């Protein structure tokens, strides 16, 4: 896809936490319309990558540009344009689900929030919980709420850390369909996951991160053409632990 607009561009992106190198010189390009999956085992640096791309944490080295905005110098600018679902769902404790969406709308200047919120309550089937305090919601319902806040302003790009982890199978199916439809409308989605079957099913491109290093990046179709499956490719690459 050489003519597609670049949505995310990371160059030599690194992050150290003390002596631990969480992300090490990663170069990554995500183009418009991709459903991009960042894959890797636990502790491979996926969450840190998302945090750096959304300006939640400052890189130790390198640069990251998201929708043309420098994530290091203008993190709020990046977060204004994108939708984010963090690794741990953390809506404020003492607001109800409905109030939280009103809060998000006020911060993001989203008009007509009542109608939009109602649509999401129905779509994700948690209208009966909208007046319950966030702290009293189940994990699954909190994930629904966080999913809603990430998409309610219809961002051009959404970054999601483990999108399906707290959902039941019915909800997983619904969300997978929503995500694939969303990119068909010309938007871009960047997910991080270690559920390889889901990545193979919905992603158009993927990258594999291991111990902070990028081992591979390319379209899923390339694997399909070789009659290879993402889980086996992933496992062999991780076991080798080297660049392909």
């Amino acid at each position: 896809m050489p003519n597609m607009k670049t949505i995310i561009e990371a160059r030599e992106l690194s992050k150290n936490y003390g002596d631990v190198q969480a992300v090490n010189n990663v170069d990554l390009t995500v183009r418009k319309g991709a459903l991009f999956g960042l894959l890797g085992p636990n502790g491979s640096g996926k969450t840190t990558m998302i945090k750096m791309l959304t300006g939640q944490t400052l890189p130790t080295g390198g640069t990251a540009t998201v929708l043309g905005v420098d994530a290091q110098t203008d993190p709020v600018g990046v977060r204004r344009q994108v939708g984010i679902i963090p690794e741990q769902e953390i809506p404020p404790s003492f607001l109800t689900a409905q109030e939280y969406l009103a809060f998000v709308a006020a911060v993001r200047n989203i008009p007509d929030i009542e109608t939009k919120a109602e649509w999401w309550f129905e779509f994700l089937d948690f209208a009966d919980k909208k007046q319950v305090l966030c702290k009293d919601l189940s994990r699954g319902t909190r994930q629904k709420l966080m999913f809603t806040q990430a998409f309610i302003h219809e961002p051009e790009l959404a970054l999601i850390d483990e999108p399906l982890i707290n959902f039941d199978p019915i909800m997983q199916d619904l969300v997978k369909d929503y995500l694939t439809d969303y990119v068909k409308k010309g938007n871009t989605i960047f997910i991080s996951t270690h559920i390889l079957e889901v990545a193979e099913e919905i992603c158009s491109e993927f990258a594999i991160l291991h111990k902070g290093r990028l081992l591979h990046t390319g379209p899923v179709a390339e694997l399909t053409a070789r009659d290879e499956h993402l889980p086996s490719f992933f496992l062999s690459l991780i076991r080798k632990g080297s660049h392909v």
Partner: protein
Amino acid sequence: MFELFACMLKEEWRVHSTMFGNLSFALFPIMIFGIAFMGSFLIPLMQVALPAGNLTLIIHANYLMLGIMVGGFGLLGSEAMNRRFGQASLLASSARSLPLSEQFIFLNFVVKDTVYYFFLWVFPFGFGYILASPFTGVSWASALLLLLTLTLSFLFGLCGVFFLSTIYARSHAALWLVLLTLGVAWAGLATITGTNPVLFFPPLLLNSTFSWVNLLVSCAVLILLFSIAIVLFNPESVGSAKIYKDSFSPLIARFPFMPHPSLTAKDIIDLYRSGSLIGQTIFSFLLPLVIIWFILSLLGPFYPPHGLLFIIAITTGVIASTMYTWITMFDSFGSYACLPVAVSTLITSKLTTFSFLQVLPCVFIAVVALLSGEAAFLIPAVVLAVSVSFYAVAVVVWLCGLSPTVLVYDVKVFFLFLVLVGIVLSVFTGLIFVNPYYALSSVVLAIPSWLLVQKAKRRWDSVDPAGF
């Protein structure tokens, strides 16, 4: 019991030490020791102006207040563990997956807090005083006795708040009944004996005349209060199925003139629905201040005219500045990380909510001024209290950003806070003793306060947002 207790103790240490380094945190009790050791050499000078009994009274009051503050923080009812540890999923909450009762976990939590803060605050102070005693002419026996009675004062504050807060969590009406009973008992004691009931405070009695009976009575009262609190502790969240009507939208409409109405509205809802607005006002503001007021009133003859009101105004200002922790305890920056909000924006909104809360110190000073017949000095006293409060909170914001309750245990932070606030308090204490109306000059504190907040915003925007 011991394994859980030891792990909780280790965890508390690591929570603090990983944030600002083992050494920096370990130096904190050493600094308290140093302050007590060096302060002991000033005792002979102080005793020229202040009789020894009154000095003892002040130190005991400070430790009682310390206990109240430690106990008040995070121990308010059913949200106790949630607030303190909530999303961090530390032992206090994760131990629930073990075959242990909630009371047992909570007992460990309380004993751990008691031991931890004893070694962090109480012991270093007492030890400094003991080590200085050969040089100050104080006998070893009375230095050791002071350590014992200060410990008891601290524990009385801790378990007193603990006791009241668990009653509050069970029934608000019961709390008012207990407070009313205590008030009646206080008034009755004062009427019958003709003495200020503060002087019957068991650790003070013990300090003035040691007896094993007094010691046993003190310990028995402590054990009784602790036991009742443990038994009454109710970890169940009563609000799990509760439906709330939308308060956010009406509230946001009321604050269009605020810099960030949505963030301020959220803070107010947090305070109200968590019970903090009432709970913290009682346990972390009114209770310590009323006790201080009673104790300082005993020292009336040693102040210049009108001095008491202004000393209370300064103290109220310092305690009112801790209201910033009431607002920042509910969330870390992590709660806002998916939104287009900068740390500096949050600081502005938290300070806006803090400004709303400043009505509490104003009302308190007004009540003190009226009850003590000093209404003529109400305005300078209120100006002084509010100026001190804003200045102290500006120092806290600069030093700690959005994590005041955690970073304050960094010895560098605490030392800088003491110096920056201490100098200002000394200057204004001197000024009001010369002329009470000089208190009005404290409005100049608005300038360093504003500068500190601007500096704080730049500082905390340029570093990785703290996840605590």
